Structure formats: structure tokens, C-alpha cells
């Protein structure tokens, strides 16, 4: 309370001190006038005698001491005043830190979205991922019977829940045609166990999620509710049609909860029992249908290790009971973070890389500020010495300097957050081109801001401590007697070291980012194995409007026929998959005569179900055998086309044509009739992947893509093809209508492009900051050596010699730094490329160009100070000091 009062009194006290000083001056002037001086003379003399009013007030206020908060306020005021007096320093510091902290905040926001951000659930630390550990997957899904067994026979969890993702067609009452959306099918008690409340309406009631095939109810995601229902609370109780069945909306989820997967944000949440349709072999009874993501809430007092131990025992029991299915399946409990890392190691590599680059930029930025601070320490040495002399403690001075550094860091942090905002917009553009929201929710939230502030505080300590420590340890008497606080050589050595390390780190940054840019160039130039870019795509799922397989097959046959008649269509084809988006279907095959190692008995291969026109339309070259034809029907022997990679893996050194493999539990034989060129399927940087094509006639599907190749601009095909669809069925939903080039550029080139842009931006930012560092140091040393240059020129040194002298300083610094950096970048690059396939080898060009360029621009940055040195007039230089 007292300190609060004192705080309120503070302005009075400041004003009072000012009054006191004014009175002193007035009295002194009056005295002098009385003694016969003119008022002007008296005024000037009195002021001269008094000294610096601001400083006197400053040091007097220090005697007040008082509450630490008041001292802090005082330090902050003092710091602000000091900084205002050196706008150049402030500007360089702000730009440096803004770039450094901005880069870090942006990188952290990506890392947070991809890895760190916990689920928005109650007490997320107590919720663990329960996953299968198989030879194929580190984080495998579980089957429904496995979930039930776990729920009934384990004791480590107070609740076990599960969910699976599915695509659904949803139509509001007013929609003529349904839309495709991701839905999360949840087990009973899902939201209760996780502790997710309903933002509007209510959660599912126990009976709604427990009994199969009744009570069709749905909850909406906040995002979908906002975009499709305008955030209207009246949506509760409304009816929507999902896969052509009526569902009642009972609630809306909070905006923070977006499902279990950070890359996929479902729009709908449905009890999984509601989707149990009679007749089909039920997912609820099949032990080998592994589709569930399982989460368990640990019982109070149970550790994750105890849960893990219990799960291992349980997994062995399952393996005994169901040896056919569970033989190689372990079970594991792990934290959400560990599951994310284990699930997608490349994510960790990319995130780690961006964090590393950003940290390097921040280091260079901090070195700039530290170097400037060291330079300023000279100018301020007397100020500090005076304050020490009148009794300010060294600790007090250190705190003062640290406050100043924190102020700079705080302002820099603010600038950084603004910079990060722009970068995050760029990252947010990293969305896959689908109708359903897919992609990271990169956002500037509290956690990201905390990370930004943390980075600035770390920066403050880094660049504030060095000068503070040097000042506090300074020799007082020496400082008062001379201009310099510190022995010049040691401080210059410190700044030299800083600049050399800046250049070195900049070289690492440039090597890494140019390697990325190189890799991206190769990606852009890479042949995706699809020559035809003049292709339009349309996606259908007639099941959503109540078709069965027979009707769907009929629909597709008519559709592709009509599409081929549309003027401008060169060819048209049906396919179940398209590259550069997740392929949800694969086939388990057993190549005939192939000896698997270990326990493996089969291999899973992604599959694309296609018709006879596919290779012609997409321009994928066949390297051997034939394409499918209309003669391949359900009645003829089963045939397949494989890609070169699959051929090379399982039929090495011989032609796979007319060889066989077996599929399905019945081990039906399939004959290979053709080999297609290996393309890129998941991403352009992937290693060659095995891939399998099966004929549509032998593998009927309801969900297919129509791909129409055009002679002209493909978008012109849109309305005639849609007309053809409507002439067949006006209610048929059409999804993902896109031209393939746009799709390809967004989906395949987008993410690596954003990554490359970020790395490039980090490289350029680092370069600029390092150049500012070199310039600042050389400029500073020129001003210190004014006298020396004057003497040199007085005794006959030519301007050229002085110019060389200064440029040599910059050259040596840059050369040492660049060589050090290139040496450093080799291990750094090795570590990075270990985590990222497709980066390729370090190009020799890069290793030569980076140091050369760096030294070149560094010397260029010294040009201005060097010119200034040559213009020093010997007579003036000798008179200074």
C-alpha cells in the first residue's frame, strides 16, 4: 500500500526536484547580478557552474532509492531517454531484432501448429495416445474389438475413447447438392473423457453413441458452423442430410477443438454407431480393420510407464488369442507430442530446420546489437564512471544497462511479432487444394507470442550482459582521467570475434538455404510422370445420393462416354486416385515366388483403380507390356499394371510381364500385363515409391475422379462437363472441380515453395544483418583511427594505401568468417539431409559461391567507411583528441 502511495506521489517529487534546481539557478543568477554582472552573463555563468541539469537531477533521484518498482520505473524512463538520444543505434537494433525475432516467431508458430500445440482438451498432459506398434507403423491404429477389449480389461485408464476420420456428403435443407466434408466418427464418451464442452447446444448423450444404427445426431465444428450457418445458434435442432440420411444437429464444438490430427480439421462430429449401416461386414466386429485413433485418460496416480507396461501384457494376450491378426502387434502408450514425431519424422526435420535457420538469424541480429552496445560503451564510459563516483553501486549500473537492453529487446520483440504476422500469413497459404479443409492451422496465439517474448528476453540477456559486465568491471580512475573506459584492443577484439562469428553463421545460413533453393529448382524441373497438364478434374461419390454399386457403375459408364463427346475433350478417364494428395487405398499383395525377410508375408502398395484410357489421358509412359483395354472385364482373368519401382523390388533383374501376385485373404492370383514409369505420388521430393494400377472393370468403385484432357484451356471444359453430369442426374454432387495445373502447383509445389521461400528469406535476412555488422565495425574502427590515418597521410601514405588498409580489415574479417562458416556448414548440412530426403548432395558451386560472394559484399560494405578514411585531412586529424 505504501509503495502504491509513493508511486502516486512520484510525479510531485520529480516536479519538486525540478523546482529545487530552478530555484538554485535563480538564486545564483540573482547573486551574480547583485555583484554587478549583466543578466545574460550571470545566466550563462550560473548554468555553467551548475553543470548538466538533467544529470544532476538524475543522480539525485538515484538517492531516493525506494521501492524496487519505483526504481524500475526510473530505470525504464532513464533507458527510454538514453535510447531516444541515439536513434541510429535504436533503428539498427530494432530492424535487427525485428528480423531475428520475427523469423523465430514465425518458425515457432509453424512448429507449434505441427508438433507442439497440445489438444484443446481438459488436462491434456494426462491423456495419452494408445497405438499399435507394428513392423510397418510406429503409430498404428486399432480395431474396434481391440478398443472394446482394452476398455474392459485394462486398469490404467479412467477412460479410453477412439475416433476415425471419414469423408461425408452433407447437405443443409437449402442445398440442392451435397458438399464433401471430413467427419470425425467418435466412440461413446469421447467428449466426456477428453473434457471438451459444447460451445453451443450439448454433447452426445450416452445412448446416442452407444447403440448402433439409431439416433442420427451430429455436432458441428466451430469453423463449419461459422462458415455454413453464419454462427447462428438456431442451428441446434436443425436437420441436415449426411450421406442422404437426416441427422439432427445437437451441438457446436469450441473453436479450439479441431479433432485429433493437427493436419486435418473435421467439420462434422458423429457418433460412430450412427454410421453403422446394416448388411456390410461390420467394422464393429472385424478384428483386422485397424481404423481407430485411440486416446486414453490415465487414472489418477498412474504414470505413462505403468500404462505402457500394462498395454504390453495385454498385447501379448491378444497375440495369443488371435495369432493370425495380432502376432506382430505391440501396443504402446505415448504422449501426443511423441506420437506426432513418430508418425511423421519429416515434419520434425522440417520444423527443426526452420527453427535452426531462425535461431541463426537471431544470433546474427543479437551479435549486431551486442557489437553496437560495445561501441557505445566507449561513449558512455564517462557517464558510467561519474555515476559510480557519486556512489551508485555497480549492481545498480548493471541493472540500469540490462533495463536498457530489455527495452531494446521488447521493442524489437514487438517489431518481430509484426514481422511474424506477415510470415504466418505465408505459412497459412500452405493448404492442400481440396474442398475439405486440410492443412495446418498456423496461428499467432498466446503460445507463439510467449515464444516470441522468450526469444527477445534471451536476446536481451545475450547482448546486454557483455557490455554490462565490461562496464561494471571497468577501471574507475582510468575512465575518469581519460576518454576510454576499456583498453581499446580488447574491446576491438571482442567486436572482431562477433563479426567473424556473424559472417560464419551467415555462411552456414546461406549454404543451407541455397541447398534448399537448389533442391526446389530440381523439384520444379522434375518430371512428375504426368505429361498432360491440360487436364480438368472432377470428383464424384454417387453413394452419397443413395446409389448402390450397380447404379454407380452405370452412371460412370454413361458419364465418361458423354465426357468424351464434349467438344475440346481429347480424352477422358476414370481413376480412384490422383498424385499429390493422400491416397487412402492400398492393396496387400504377395508377389509370387518372392522370399520375404523376417515375419513379413505380404506388402502393402498404394493402388489406383483406372480405366483403359488412363495412361493416354495422363501421359504416363508405359515402359513394358500393355495398358488395360475394354477387353479386361469382370469375367476375364484378373490383371494389373505395376510401376518400375515395384517391379525392381519384387521381380529384380527380370521382366515382370506375365508374372503373378496374390491379393486378399483368398489369395486370388493377378497377372501383371504392363509396367509404367515410376512417377511422383505423394510429394515431388519422395524417393521412388512402388505403385499399383488395377482395372476399374474388375474392381468397381463408387468414388471416382473424372479426368478430362483438353486441346485448349482446360477450364473451358468445366461447364460442358457439368452439363453432361446434370443431364444424367441433376442431384449428383461434384467435388474438387479443378484444373490439374493449378492443383499441381498448389499441392505439389506449394509446400516446398513456401519452405524454400522461408529458407531464402532467412538467408537474405542473415546476410543483410551480417553486412550491417561488418559495416558498423569497420566504420567504428575508422573513426577510432582518424588520428592514425592522419599521421600516415602526413608522412606520405597515399589515399590508395589508406583505402587498402581499411578494405583489408573488412576482407580479413570476412574471409576468416566465411571459411569458418563453410567448414561449419558441412556437418550442419549432413545433419539436415539425414532428416530430409530429396535434399541431394551439397553442390560444389554453393561451397565456392557462398564464401566468394560473402567476402565480396562484405568488402563492398567497407567501401563507404574506407572512402571516408581517405578524405581525412591530416591537419584536422592531428588537431583532434
Amino acid at each position, binding site marked *: 500500500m505504501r509503495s502504491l502511495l509513493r508511486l502516486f506521489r512520484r510525479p510531485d517529487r520529480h516536479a519538486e526536484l525540478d523546482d529545487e534546481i530552478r530555484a538554485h539557478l535563480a538564486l545564483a543568477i540573482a547573486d551574480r547580478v547583485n555583484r554587478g554582472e549583466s543578466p545574460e552573463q550571470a545566466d550563462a555563468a550560473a548554468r555553467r557552474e551548475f553543470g548538466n541539469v538533467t544529470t*544532476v537531477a538524475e543522480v539525485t533521484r538515484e538517492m531516493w532509492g525506494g521501492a524496487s518498482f519505483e526504481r524500475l520505473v526510473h530505470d525504464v524512463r532513464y533507458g527510454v531517454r538514453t535510447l531516444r538520444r541515439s536513434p541510429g543505434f535504436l533503428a539498427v537494433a530494432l530492424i535487427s531484432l525485428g528480423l531475428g525475432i520475427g523469423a523465430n516467431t514465425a518458425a515457432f508458430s509453424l512448429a507449434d501448429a505441427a508438433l507442439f500445440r497440445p489438444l484443446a482438451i481438459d488436462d491434456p498432459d494426462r491423456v495419452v495416445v494408445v497405438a499399435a506398434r507394428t513392423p510397418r507403423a510406429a503409430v498404428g491404429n486399432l480395431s474396434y474389438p481391440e478398443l472394446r477389449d482394452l476398455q474392459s480389461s485394462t486398469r490404467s485408464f479412467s477412460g479410453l475413447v477412439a475416433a476415425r476420420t471419414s469423408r461425408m456428403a452433407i447437405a443443409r435443407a437449402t442445398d440442392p447438392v451435397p458438399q464433401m466434408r471430413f467427419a470425425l466418427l467418435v466412440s461413446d464418451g469421447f467428449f466426456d473423457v477428453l473434457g471438451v464442452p459444447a460451445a453451443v447446444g450439448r454433447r452426445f448423450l450416452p445412448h446416442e453413441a452407444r447403440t448402433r444404427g439409431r439416433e442420427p445426431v451430429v455436432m458441428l465444428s466451430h469453423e463449419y458452423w461459422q462458415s455454413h450457418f453464419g454462427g447462428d445458434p438456431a442451428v441446434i435442432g436443425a436437420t441436415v442430410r449426411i450421406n442422404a440420411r437426416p441427422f439432427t444437429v445437437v451441438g457446436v464444438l469450441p473453436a479450439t477443438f479441431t479433432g485429433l490430427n493437427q493436419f486435418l480439421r473435421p467439420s462434422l462430429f458423429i457418433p460412430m454407431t450412427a454410421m453403422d449401416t446394416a448388411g456390410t461386414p461390420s467394422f464393429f466386429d472385424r478384428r483386422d480393420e485397424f481404423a481407430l485413433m485411440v486416446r486414453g485418460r490415465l487414472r489418477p496416480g498412474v504414470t505413462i510407464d505403468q500404462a505402457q507396461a500394462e498395454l504390453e501384457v495385454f498385447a501379448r494376450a491378444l497375440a495369443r488369442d488371435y495369432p493370425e491378426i495380432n502376432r506382430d502387434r505391440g501396443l504402446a502408450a505415448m504422449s501426443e507430442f511423441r506420437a506426432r514425431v513418430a508418425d511423421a519424422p519429416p515434419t520434425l526435420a522440417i520444423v527443426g530446420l526452420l527453427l535452426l535457420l531462425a535461431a541463426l538469424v537471431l544470433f546474427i541480429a543479437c551479435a549486431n546489437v551486442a557489437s553496437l552496445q560495445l561501441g557505445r560503451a566507449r561513449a558512455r564510459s564517462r557517464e558510467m564512471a561519474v555515476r559510480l563516483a557519486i556512489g551508485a553501486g555497480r549492481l545498480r549500473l548493471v541493472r540500469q544497462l540490462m533495463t536498457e537492453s530489455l527495452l531494446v529487446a521488447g521493442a524489437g520483440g514487438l517489431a518481430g511479432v509484426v514481422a511474424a504476422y506477415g510470415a504466418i500469413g505465408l505459412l497459412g497459404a500452405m493448404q492442400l487444394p481440396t474442398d475439405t479443409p486440410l492443412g495446418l492451422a498456423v496461428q499467432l496465439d498466446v503460445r507463439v507470442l510467449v515464444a516470441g517474448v522468450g526469444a527477445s528476453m534471451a536476446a536481451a540477456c545475450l547482448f546486454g550482459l557483455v557490455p554490462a559486465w565490461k562496464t561494471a568491471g571497468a577501471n574507475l580512475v582510468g575512465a575518469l582521467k581519460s576518454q576510454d573506459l576499456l583498453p581499446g584492443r580488447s574491446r576491438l577484439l571482442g567486436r572482431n570475434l562477433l563479426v567473424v562469428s556473424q559472417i560464419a553463421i551467415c555462411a552456414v545460413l546461406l549454404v543451407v538455404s541455397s541447398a534448399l533453393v537448389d533442391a526446389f529448382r530440381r523439384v520444379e524441373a522434375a518430371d512428375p510422370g504426368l505429361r498432360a497438364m491440360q487436364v480438368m478434374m472432377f470428383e464424384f461419390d454417387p453413394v452419397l445420393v443413395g446409389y448402390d454399386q450397380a447404379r454407380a457403375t452405370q452412371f460412370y459408364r454413361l458419364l465418361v462416354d458423354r465426357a468424351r463427346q464434349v467438344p475440346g475433350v481429347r480424352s477422358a478417364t476414370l481413376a480412384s486416385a490422383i498424385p499429390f494428395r493422400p491416397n487412402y487405398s492400398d492393396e496387400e499383395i504377395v508377389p509370387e515366388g518372392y522370399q520375404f525377410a523376417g515375419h513379413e508375408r505380404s506388402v502393402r502398395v498404394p493402388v489406383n483403380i483406372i480405366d483403359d484410357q488412363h495412361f493416354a489421358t495422363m501421359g504416363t509412359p508405359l515402359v513394358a507390356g500393355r495398358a488395360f483395354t475394354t477387353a479386361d472385364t469382370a469375367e476375364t482373368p484378373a490383371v494389373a499394371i505395376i510401376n518400375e519401382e515395384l517391379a525392381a523390388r519384387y521381380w529384380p533383374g527380370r521382366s515382370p510381364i506375365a508374372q503373378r501376385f496374390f491379393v486378399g485373404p483368398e489369395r486370388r492370383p493377378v497377372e501383371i500385363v504392363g509396367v509404367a514409369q515410376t512417377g511422383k505420388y505423394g510429394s515431388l521430393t519422395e524417393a521412388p515409391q512402388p505403385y499399383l494400377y488395377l482395372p476399374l472393370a474388375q474392381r468397381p468403385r463408387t468414388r471416382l475422379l473424372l479426368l478430362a484432357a483438353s486441346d485448349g484451356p482446360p477450364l473451358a471444359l468445366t461447364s460442358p462437363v457439368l452439363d453432361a453430369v446434370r443431364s444424367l442426374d441433376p442431384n449428383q454432387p461434384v467435388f474438387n472441380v479443378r484444373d490439374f495445373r493449378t492443383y499441381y502447383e498448389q499441392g505439389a509445389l506449394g509446400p516446398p515453395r513456401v519452405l524454400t521461400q522461408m529458407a531464402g528469406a532467412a538467408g537474405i535476412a542473415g546476410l543483410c544483418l551480417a553486412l550491417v555488422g561488418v559495416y558498423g565495425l569497420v566504420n567504428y574502427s575508422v573513426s577510432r583511427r582518424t588520428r592514425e590515418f592522419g599521421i600516415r597521410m602526413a608522412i606520405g601514405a597515399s589515399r590508395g594505401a589508406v583505402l587498402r588498409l581499411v578494405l583489408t580489415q573488412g576482407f580479413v574479417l570476412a574471409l576468416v568468417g566465411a571459411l569458418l562458416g563453410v567448414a561449419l556448414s558441412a556437418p550442419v548440412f549432413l545433419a539436415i539431409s539425414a532428416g530430409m530426403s530429396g535434399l541431394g548432395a551439397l553442390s560444389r558451386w554453393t561451397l565456392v559461391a557462398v564464401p566468394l560472394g560473402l567476402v565480396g559484399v562484405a568488402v563492398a560494405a567497407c567501401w563507404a567507411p574506407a572512402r571516408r578514411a581517405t578524405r581525412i585531412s591530416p591537419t584536422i586529424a592531428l588537431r583532434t583528441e
Partner: protein
Amino acid sequence: MPRDRYQNRIELLQGTLDMLVLRALRAGPRHGYGITQTIAAGSRDVLQVETGSLYPALHRMEKRGLVVAEWALTDFNQRAKFYRLTPAGRRQLEAERARWDLMAEAITRLMNAKDSEAPA
């Protein structure tokens, strides 16, 4: 920043400034400027107290309760902040005075001693 602005013509011995200020206030309340004048006059202009030392000292002693300050009018009708000794200040002055006498006597004796008596 010009040199030596805050250094006294004769550097005051550490700790003597407080004593001089207290001594100047013994005759009655004075404002800051008055104190500098009193000290200068009393030392025949040998000792000049700099404002950069005086005001911190005054405020420090005010905080320690050795002096109290109040605003009043000067003889020339000007508002100024007058410092007055408190009983504690008076005791402090006596203590410092005693210490000073002891030291001055000791130093004088040492300086005047015959060489044979001086420490080796």
C-alpha cells in the same frame, strides 16, 4: 561532455561532504545554493561543492532523517527548498566532528613528527 565538471577543486576526502553540509546547516536552515555559498565563504573559496554531489547528498541525508526540508521564501521573496538539521542530524554532526578531529589530529601529528619517530 567537458572534463572534470563534477570534480571539486580540491577533492573532498571521502565522507567529508556530509559533515560540511551538516555544519553549514548548524547555524540555521539553508537552501542548496545557500549551502554552497556558506561552504565556499567559510573555506575562503578553497572548497567548492558541486551540485552533482550536493543534491544527491542532501536527498540522501533527508532520506536518512538527518535533515528535513520545506519550501519557504528567501529574503528576496523567492521560493526555495530550505533544509534544516534534525536532532539526529545534530548527533550525526557531533559524531562526524569527533571522528574528523581524531583523524586530523592523527594526520597532523604524523606529518609533524621528527624523522626518527616515523615508522620505518
